[in-house]
């Protein structure tokens, strides 16, 4: 009989503790992926075989064939530093695998062609990457792969919308094989199976293994330990009232400190276009054409800008913005001395195939749905801005006059910067674009240094439809409930026992 009570108590205890865990708000669970001392290692392995492998960061092993070419780091061979990193790696793998998946994939999934949003992806078996896969969004990605991970030669892990290699973790239980010419982003964490890396691979991340890692000859391959780039630290657009302030600090001031933004070239005058464009009722005619001296025929009046060697601060004078839909004007800035290096993202993303081409955040087994057609908010001759049913923004931009070029597209959405590598025409999908009324500034910097600056496009992005009401529960009322239940339960058991006595 007493044992019965003991069992009952245990059951109620377990129930109560589980209940209190469930009651805690989801926001209380924060993913804190920490590699510990292993974070400084670009390459960590029990048995390391490298051939013409360059590593920016530390390397460590118990046994190794040769010491890799190391920059910004040291090689640790079977010493305390290596073993500490190895222990931290093991802890990180356990932690990563303990996270509750947000997306459950299937064994044998092929991520090729997918666009994946941040989250915890769980695959119960093998995963293949047969074509480029795009990771989109500045948050953490964890891939829990129970089987093997294989990439096809020449595939790339592309990053867009602020996705960063430092936030990507491929936790592979089976063997991992990165084929030749793979451009890999993220940290590959392996515990008990071998990792093989083909020739000419570029790894913006880490290869951390508690087993063997083999780089196939003749190489070369490169590993660079990624560093997280902060969001553009623009000044708070809306200043909190400061008692000492005599006048309000408007959000319109050009508070973007060029030195603080992750895009070095924003220091050039071009970003001055972020200043508020004076409101004017004068429509802007489609006149100024970004055509270099030997201009190709253009429909509108052409103002060829001589390609002088002197950088021209193209944005010294803000261009009046149109109040009616007009073709966006573009201004050619003669090759400046400081073309924008695409350094915001470790590996610049290539042009996205568009919203319809690949489903977002869907497991590989789900077939693409009917292409989503954006509702265009703004349509100019060269720039179209639309919203998809799921709230994502699509920017369709092209260079004037069918010019052919490749380079870096910059989109400034109310101070939030997005960069993408592309050709003369690009379709860019932005998840969680800022909501409200603001200007979109578009600029294209070709690889030869020519800069095209388009007229600011004002957009008004409405509040999302059917948004989830924020979870405003603090955990304390849940704790209060748990405490009350525990107290009552303890009291009842005690009372029953006294009665029996």
């Amino acid at each position, binding site marked *: 009989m007493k044992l019965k009570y*003991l069992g009952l108590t245990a059951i109620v205890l377990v129930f109560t503790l589980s209940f209190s865990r469930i009651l805690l708000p989801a926001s209380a669970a924060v993913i804190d992926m920490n590699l510990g001392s292993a974070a400084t290692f670009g390459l960590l392995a029990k048995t390391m075989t490298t051939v013409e492998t360059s590593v920016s960061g530390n390397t460590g092993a118990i046994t190794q064939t040769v010491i890799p070419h190391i920059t910004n780091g040291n090689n640790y061979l079977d010493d305390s530093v290596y073993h500490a990193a190895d222990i931290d790696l093991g802890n990180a793998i356990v932690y990563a695998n303990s996270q509750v998946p947000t997306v459950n994939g299937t064994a044998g999934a092929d991520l090729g062609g997918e666009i994946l949003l941040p989250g915890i992806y769980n695959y119960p078996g093998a995963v293949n990457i047969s074509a480029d896969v795009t990771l989109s969004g500045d948050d953490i990605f964890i891939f829990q792969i129970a089987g093997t991970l294989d990439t096809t030669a020449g595939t790339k892990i592309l990053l867009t919308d602020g996705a960063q290699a430092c936030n990507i973790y491929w936790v592979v239980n089976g063997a991992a094989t990165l084929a030749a010419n793979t451009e890999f982003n993220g940290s590959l964490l392996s515990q008990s199976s071998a990792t093989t890396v083909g020739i000419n691979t570029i790894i913006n991340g880490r290869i951390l293994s508690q087993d063997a890692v083999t780089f196939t000859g003749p190489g070369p391959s490169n590993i660079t330990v990624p560093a997280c780039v902060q969001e553009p630290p623009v000044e708070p*657009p*809306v200043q909190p009232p400061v008692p000492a*302030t005599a006048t309000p600090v408007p959000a319109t001031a050009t508070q973007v400190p060029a030195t603080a933004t992750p895009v070095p070239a924003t220091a050039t005058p071009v970003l001055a276009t972020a200043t508020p464009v004076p409101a004017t009722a004068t429509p802007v005619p489609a006149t100024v054409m970004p055509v270099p001296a030997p201009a190709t025929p253009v429909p509108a009046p052409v103002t060829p800008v001589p390609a002088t060697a002197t950088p021209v601060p193209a944005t010294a004078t803000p261009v009046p913005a149109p109040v009616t839909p007009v073709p966006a004007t573009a201004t050619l800035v003669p090759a400046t001395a400081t073309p924008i290096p695409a350094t915001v993202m470790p590996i610049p993303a290539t042009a996205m195939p568009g919203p319809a081409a690949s489903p977002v955040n869907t497991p590989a087994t789900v077939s693409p749905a009917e292409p989503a057609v954006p509702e265009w908010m*703004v349509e100019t001759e060269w720039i179209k801005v639309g919203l998809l049913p799921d709230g994502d923004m699509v920017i369709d931009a092209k260079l004037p006059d069918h010019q052919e070029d490749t380079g870096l597209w910059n989109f400034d959405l109310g101070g939030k910067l997005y960069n993408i590598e592309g050709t003369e025409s690009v379709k860019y999908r932005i998840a969680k674009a800022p909501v409200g*009324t*603001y200007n979109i500034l578009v600029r294209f910097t070709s690889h030869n240094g020519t800069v095209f600056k388009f007229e600011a496009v004002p957009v008004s992005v409405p509040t999302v439809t059917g948004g989830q009401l924020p979870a*405003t529960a603090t955990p304390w009322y849940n704790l209060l409930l748990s405490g009350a239940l525990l107290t009552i339960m303890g009291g009842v058991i005690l009372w029953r026992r006294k009665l029996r006595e």
Partner: protein
Amino acid sequence: MNKRHTEHKVKAGKQIYIISLGTMIMGILSISWALIHIQAQAVPAAYSENTDLFPIQADLRNIVKSSIAVPAEAGDSSSIPPQDDILYPIRPLEGDVIGQLIIPALQQILPIIHGTDEDELEEGIGHFPESVLPGENNNSVLSGHRDTVFSKLGQLEIGNKLIVDTSAGSFTYKISAIRIVDKDDKTIIVPTDHAVLTVSTCYPFHFIGSAPDRYILIADLIAEVRSPTT
């Protein structure tokens, strides 16, 4: 045999006693811990009449009361907004303080932070990032904890004013509706054709556990005074 059985009974009885006592102690500790935190989360800012407002905000409020106030107009359906509709040329990042909410009826001044994650809600009122900013021509959604910033929200009535001061100006809203909805209701955060301020918190206010509902205030913009440079 009988003796052994008695010993076993006594041992089991002691175990039950210890477990039940431990459970009670755990429960009491949990309650104490929770109550301490609930009590400790004081309202971040106190209210006073204009004298305590920051100079520029006090001026703005006086102007609102005068006839200079610009009445709110229905939203323009045009997809391309005029440049003078751009109140916030640079959009905030999550965690940025974007202004303050003044509730004259409750004599409260509360900071508004962009974002509604726990980090932001700990600091004050959170602005739902997928809604427009206060003063803009659509539905701006603010949320806060029922046990901190919005502990007195239930005292507000239809017709009470809510004033949002940001760098774009001072925006006065009047409560037009009060609703209690399920926490998963999807009819609250929706676009509107005019400037609306939606305020939400958990309901019931003193529910022990995870509150199943949300208390909603819907307020319409009735006056605005923009900062000179916006």
